[in-house]
């Protein structure tokens, strides 16, 4: 019995052993299962946080924060949208096969670590300051200015599948992630070649003295002065007492629109520029400094060239008349002067004129033809031979209001077809109307950076007002009266239809301080594509990089500077002077200086024999003479704010200087080496420019990527190369060599090619030169460089933003 019982119990221990072993292995398996699942859940939560924070930070870099207001409301909106994007990204994630779409968005941070029901997820998206160990930032001004990173905090309540059996309850998993503060050290290479204002809508105007009336306005200062063209006796004394037609009191200023060859008023279309032969574009500038004689050039395919008439522009001959004597004060300036063919007696007009009625040249005072005010008789007056002039009929012409044949293309003024730019911030691209349309009572917005213009109201009713505003004759009553505008004035438009001799309605009441400045400010906004390019670089690149990264900037403006010509291999780190492109066959032609603010107005209008400051003055803070091509070296030691304002400070009211000088070309403040200080001029000398940009990364104590102490090793090094053309033929190879050199130095070259002329030849050339293949600058540089083509001005800012995005996102 006992034996049987014992026999029956044999194997029970083994059974127990097997059961125990089974239980043990099962428990071990459960533990392994749950711990693995826990680990997987933790990783998924971390990955989801990573994705959300990176997406949010990337979105922050993608949104427009340009031209923000005083309370950084655009930044606030962008931050809110970026946070929302991060939250959406998080809620699109998955945890253990379940969607996180129902994740609770919580605040404050402590709520994240609340344990809820199994599967509950709490998430908090916040702004963080990478400069303060990613401390949280409240989304209010001014705190939000430091919110440069998006943080994602998440808590997930995990419920073990099996470990609950042994008392392991719900487990809280936590994860967080934040987009880091990228470091960016970038040099912008910006094209200021002549083509950068070729797409501007302009009007060529012949401002002339019209002896055919109407009669001057009564009460004007010169009322009663005879128009000498009505003299009947050659060389008669112009006092109205002898040889004058009785009762003839004629003559007012007449503005005649010089029509374009076609319907387009673009500068390049006016001149019918040959882009195939001259892809660098038109050398003529739409804003001072203007080398107006270069409108007559070999690349203009207009049947009748557009010819600037310096003699007609002003009522003086500053480069031949000695600067002595009573009339001297009139010489050399264009303020307060009637047209060159004004036939009123001294002090309103001077010397020789042409009597159309008689068909004879006449003098105010016999034998004093050196004081000739206007006489294009190149055959007899040798002093005037220097300025070639096409004459339709005969050697002597008096193109007062003639608007036929070759003479119709004689002009004195080139003005931009400005318009009301709308409210602040001005939305580029701003394209002026094809035909100038007068507008009244435009009030500059209060946010206008130029304090002299902010809130001020101006009217530009017709091309007469526009012309005089551009000349500065509406700034002071004395200018207005000295130009004989108080006698009244008329204008004639030829496109779209001829409207002859309309009254400009300009009176001395029109005058107001800063009228010229107002015109020039508006003209800057309507100069294309440079205005759009500057706006794009400013808003799409500099502002964004400055707001969202720890950065330093360098800047290289280029066209074809005198220094780059002298030292074509570069580098030239400081602002450069560029010759004003008056060719040797135009030795005595005029250019219109930009320089009048704070300067003697007598130097406003220049010949190359009496060169103006742009021609002779050394570039302040730079090298050479001429028109400014701004540059500013990359510098590690300076603060981010100094670096930033040095490049774009001229566009900001805090450092604004002489906005009235277009593009602040001759400004002498530290802010004069920035983006808005260049003048569209000359060629596209890319090799020297890229050499200089690259050398800014090898610039000793300022910045040197070859040393640790002068470098910022965590920074992305980049050159952003913007051009609207292609290089001078000899430049392509050396430029590519520079880009190839960047490859081994970790410098990415981002290229932006703009073509507003819809020129497939140019676009193809840009793809080759700037493109992503090893033969293009972006491809040759490697390191993530990329080419961004822009087929229209409207995409310029997008391209700059895309570059900024590539430089700012993807870092933790």
């Amino acid at each position, binding site marked *: 019995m006992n034996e049987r019982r014992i026999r029956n119990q044999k194997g*029970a221990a083994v059974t127990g052993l097997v059961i125990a072993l089974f239980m*043990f292995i099962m428990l071990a398996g459960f533990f392994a299962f749950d711990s693995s699942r826990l680990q997987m859940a933790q990783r998924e939560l971390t990955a989801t946080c990573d994705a959300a924070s990176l997406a949010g930070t990337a979105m922050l870099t993608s949104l427009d924060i340009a031209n923000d207001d005083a309370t950084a409301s655009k930044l606030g909106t962008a931050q809110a949208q970026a946070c929302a994007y991060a939250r959406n990204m998080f809620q699109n994630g998955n945890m253990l096969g379940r969607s996180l779409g129902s994740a609770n968005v919580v605040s404050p941070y402590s709520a994240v670590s609340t344990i809820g029901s199994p599967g509950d997820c709490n998430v908090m998206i916040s702004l963080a300051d990478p*400069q303060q160990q990613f401390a949280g930032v409240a989304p209010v001004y001014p705190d939000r200015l430091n919110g440069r990173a998006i943080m994602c905090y998440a808590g997930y309540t995990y419920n073990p599948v099996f470990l609950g059996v042994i008392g392991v309850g719900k487990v809280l998993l936590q994860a967080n992630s934040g987009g880091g503060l990228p470091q960016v050290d970038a040099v912008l290479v910006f094209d200021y070649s002549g083509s950068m204002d070729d797409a501007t809508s302009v009007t060529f105007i012949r401002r002339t003295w019209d002896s055919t009336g109407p009669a001057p306005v009564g009460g004007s200062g010169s009322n009663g002065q005879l128009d000498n063209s009505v003299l009947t006796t050659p060389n008669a004394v112009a006092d109205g007492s002898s040889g004058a037609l009785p009762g003839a009191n004629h003559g007012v200023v007449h503005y005649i629109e010089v029509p374009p060859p076609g319907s387009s008023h673009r500068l390049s279309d006016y001149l019918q520029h040959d882009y195939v032969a001259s892809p660098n574009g038109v050398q003529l500038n739409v804003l001072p400094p203007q080398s107006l004689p270069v409108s007559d050039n070999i690349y203009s395919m207009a049947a009748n060239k557009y010819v600037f008439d310096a003699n007609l522009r002003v009522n003086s001959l500053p480069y031949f008349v000695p600067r002595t004597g009573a009339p001297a004060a009139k010489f050399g300036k264009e303020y307060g002067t009637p047209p060159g063919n004004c036939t009123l007696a001294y002090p309103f007009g001077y010397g020789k004129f042409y009597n159309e009625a008689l068909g004879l040249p006449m003098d105010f005072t016999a034998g004093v033809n050196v004081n000739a005010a206007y006489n294009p008789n190149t055959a007899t007056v040798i002093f005037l031979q220097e300025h070639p002039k096409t004459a339709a009929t005969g050697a002597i012409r008096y193109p007062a209001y003639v608007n036929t044949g070759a003479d119709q293309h004689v002009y004195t003024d080139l003005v931009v077809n400005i318009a009301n730019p709308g409210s602040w911030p001005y939305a580029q691209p701003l394209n002026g109307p094809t035909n100038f349309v007068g507008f009244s009572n435009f009030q500059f917005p209060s946010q206008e950076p130029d304090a002299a213009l902010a809130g001020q109201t101006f009217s530009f009713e017709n091309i007469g007002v526009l012309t005089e505003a551009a000349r500065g004759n509406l700034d002071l009553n004395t200018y207005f009266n000295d130009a004989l505008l108080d006698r009244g004035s008329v204008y004639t438009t030829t496109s779209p239809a001829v409207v002859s001799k309309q009254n400009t309605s300009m009176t001395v009441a029109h005058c107001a301080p800063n009228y010229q400045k107002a015109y020039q400010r508006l003209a800057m906004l309507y100069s294309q594509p440079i205005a759009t390019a500057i706006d794009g670089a400013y808003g799409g690149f500099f502002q964004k990089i400055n707001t969202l990264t720890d950065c330093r900037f360098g800047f290289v403006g280029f066209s074809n500077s005198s220094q780059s010509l002298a030292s074509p291999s570069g580098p030239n780190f400081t602002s450069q002077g560029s010759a004003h492109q008056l060719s040797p066959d135009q030795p005595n032609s005029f250019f219109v200086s930009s320089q009048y603010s704070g300067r003697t107005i007598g130097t406003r209008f220049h010949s190359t024999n009496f060169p103006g400051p742009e021609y002779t003055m050394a570039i302040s803070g730079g090298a050479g003479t001429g028109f400014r091509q701004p540059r500013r070296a990359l510098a590690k030691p300076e603060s981010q704010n100094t670096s930033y304002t040095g490049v774009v400070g001229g566009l900001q009211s805090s450092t604004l200087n002489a906005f009235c000088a277009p593009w602040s070309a001759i400004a002498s403040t530290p802010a004069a080496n920035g983006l808005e200080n260049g003048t569209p001029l000359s060629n596209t000398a890319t090799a020297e420019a890229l050499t200089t940009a690259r050398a800014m990364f090898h610039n000793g104590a300022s910045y040197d990527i070859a040393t640790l102490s002068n470098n910022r*090793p*965590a920074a992305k090094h980049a050159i952003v190369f913007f051009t609207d053309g292609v290089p001078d033929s000899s430049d392509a190879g050396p430029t590519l060599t520079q880009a190839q050199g960047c490859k081994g130095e970790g410098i990415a070259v981002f290229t932006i090619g703009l073509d507003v002329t819809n020129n497939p030849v140019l676009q193809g050339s840009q793809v080759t030169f700037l493109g992503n293949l090893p033969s293009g600058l972006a491809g040759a540089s490697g390191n*993530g460089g990329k080419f961004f083509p822009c087929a229209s001005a409207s995409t310029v800012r997008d391209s700059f933003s895309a570059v900024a995005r590539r430089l700012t996102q993807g*870092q933790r």
Partner: protein
Amino acid sequence: MAAEYVATMYVLFLFIFFPVLNLGTCGLRAFFLWFACNQATMLAAKAKTFNTLVYVPEPSGTPYPGAYATARARAAQIRSMFPGVDWTTNATNPEVRIIRAVIPGSGAPAVADVIGPATLGLGNIPDVDQYVCTIRVTINGQVTPLIPVPWFNIQGLSSPMFLTVSSEAQFENPPGLQF
């Protein structure tokens, strides 16, 4: 029966329970060792430099100590979280290695790995069109069983098990490898 149970328990605990417990513990700790290595690699791959401390922004912003220090610090941090996981720390353990793998078809020559704390050196910026730059962290460590058994020496069963674990990830800022 009692004798049988004793024998059974003896077998159960001596030959099954404790060995399995020790082996299981070693397995779990081996995972922690790998986890330390993996986490060190992940964090190191996101570093801005390889072995240079930088502050963003300078001079007193957030410190970024470089991949080498980051990897070693992170590994040590995880080691401290889990008992029984250990390694002898020296300049090359954990080893942080820069690997530049040739991209097939690029025609680039093979180059030697660089072992931290050495860096690629100034001016030696890897060409990312030719090489994939990765960080590999290798730890020669040991994991100890839960119950040491002094009488015999079988790694993982009665005495610490020596393991070499490694993990690799692509470095996110290749130019930083020169610093």
